[in-house]
């Protein structure tokens, strides 16, 4: 058999997600437009209108309805897709818990954008991070290619019988949704083979009627919640498996839960999530050329969180810095909290710094990242620096 043609296209991240969704053949798409997710929905609507995508495209009056509609569709036993961003994700909040608690393998793209107020439409991770405990798998991507590939992987992960948990694929608003990139598009037959047909689990049936989304009293809630926790545990393996298998078919894989760059022999690493990992890699590469033993860890999966990975990383590093494009007011960056928590174990005394940066679309410049590595070097040598730093913040005193 001849290898399917490799097709490339110069497209935005939004279009890459739309193409990925089309390749996964969802039967029902319901979405409400919101900047910067709009491109995704517009493109899908075009594909459906042109007959290139055989999905029911539902126009709904809100994001709450969008997710309710795809949950209803998923209940009827078909593959579904939706996309949102920021305020829209927050409007979905109630349904996020409904979908995950009811174990429907819905896949969603979230164009990361900050949350008002102050009003702003540009990117940071405060929207999705605030939905950390909604029971969704949360994956973050670095570029348009990874957005396309991860969305396809997301269906495989969500629909795995050991997981059956919805997946949110997060791509940075504007930096990815509106930036054009040369993206390789896998052939339809590759995606068809990779995903297989949709196998409904908790679905309506006229022949064998089921009661769905039923009440569980206090005596039984804990067991259902434990099921969700176990599914997230299984998802750690399945995310890695799905990535490996995708790599076998397309030649592209991303390290599973985390993507490492020059970590093996490094003393200091930066941890980043989303598109900033691309900038950080360029800086890390340059510092390597100058002889600095620095590395980079890109977190792909925020939930489930790769706790064991960071525990082992902490044993090998002298300093770990975490870039957060979010902040949990009154504490610190959310990713930093997770990593600090994973590092708290006997035998690990690695020093850490949290960098709160890239809030509401502010650039994370290469010089900021160079300075971050410099701070890591300083704490690795025993100096004291502020634990939480805000690169680029005006009028800072250190």
């Amino acid at each position: 058999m001849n290898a399917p043609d490799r097709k490339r296209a110069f497209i935005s991240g939004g279009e890459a997600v739309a193409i990925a969704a089309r390749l996964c053949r969802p039967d029902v798409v319901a979405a409400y437009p919101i900047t910067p997710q709009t491109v995704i929905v517009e493109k899908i609507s075009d594909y459906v209108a042109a007959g290139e995508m055989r999905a029911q495209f539902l126009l709904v009056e809100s994001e709450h309805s969008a997710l309710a509609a795809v949950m209803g569709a998923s209940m009827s036993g078909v593959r579904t897709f939706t996309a949102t961003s920021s305020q829209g994700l927050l409007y979905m909040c109630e349904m996020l818990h409904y979908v995950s608690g009811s174990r429907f393998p819905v896949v969603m793209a979230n164009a990361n954008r900050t949350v008002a107020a102050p009003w702003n439409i540009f990117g940071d991770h405060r929207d999705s991070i605030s939905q950390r405990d909604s029971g969704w798998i949360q994956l973050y991507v670095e570029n348009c290619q990874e957005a396309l590939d991860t969305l396809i992987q997301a269906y495989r992960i969500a629909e795995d019988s050991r997981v059956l948990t919805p997946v949110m694929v997060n791509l940075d608003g504007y930096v990815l949704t509106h930036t054009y990139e040369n993206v390789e598009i896998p052939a339809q037959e590759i995606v068809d083979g990779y995903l297989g047909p949709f196998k409904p689990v908790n679905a309506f049936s006229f022949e064998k009627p089921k009661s769905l989304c039923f009440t569980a009293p206090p005596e039984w809630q804990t067991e259902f919640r434990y099921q969700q926790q176990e599914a997230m545990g299984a998802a750690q393996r399945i995310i890695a498996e799905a990535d490996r298998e995708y790599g076998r078919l397309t030649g592209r894989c991303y390290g599973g839960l985390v993507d490492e760059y020059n970590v093996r022999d490094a003393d200091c690493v930066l941890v980043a999530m989303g598109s900033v990992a691309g900038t950080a890699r360029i800086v890390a590469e340059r510092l390597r050329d100058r002889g600095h033993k620095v590395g980079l860890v890109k977190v792909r999966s925020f939930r489930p969180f790769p706790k064991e990975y960071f525990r082992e990383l902490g044993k090998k590093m002298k300093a770990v810095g975490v870039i957060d494009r979010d902040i949990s007011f009154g504490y610190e960056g959310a990713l930093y909290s997770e990593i600090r928590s994973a590092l708290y174990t006997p035998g690990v005394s690695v020093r850490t710094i949290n960098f709160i940066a890239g809030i509401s679309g502010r650039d994370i410049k290469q010089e900021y990242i160079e300075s971050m590595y410099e701070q890591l070097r300083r704490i690795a040598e025993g100096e004291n620096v502020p634990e939480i730093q805000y690169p680029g913040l005006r009028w800072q005193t250190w």
Partner: protein
Amino acid sequence: MNKPKALNGYKYPSAKEEMPLGPGSYAGVLIDVNSGWRTFRPAIDLDMCKKCLICWLLCPDGAIDKSGDRLEIDYDYCKGCGICAYECPVKAITMVKEGERQ
């Protein structure tokens, strides 16, 4: 009462594998008596009842059984809302305070 009484002989899951996956399953799982908050219970005067079945049709909980010769109320699921008594055209149903004899 000919209505299936799911509670009779029902066994709760005794192992993880017996649990439904999420809150979705065929009928009759994790069932329980569901009427604990009733203050008044409906009582049917069978001499007056014409079996018009308006109560059976309107009961929001499907707690009225018509399978036998006469109507019966499943008090394991009746919440005491009183719709049946309100709607009964011949006033054959009265709401009786729980704990008091008819």
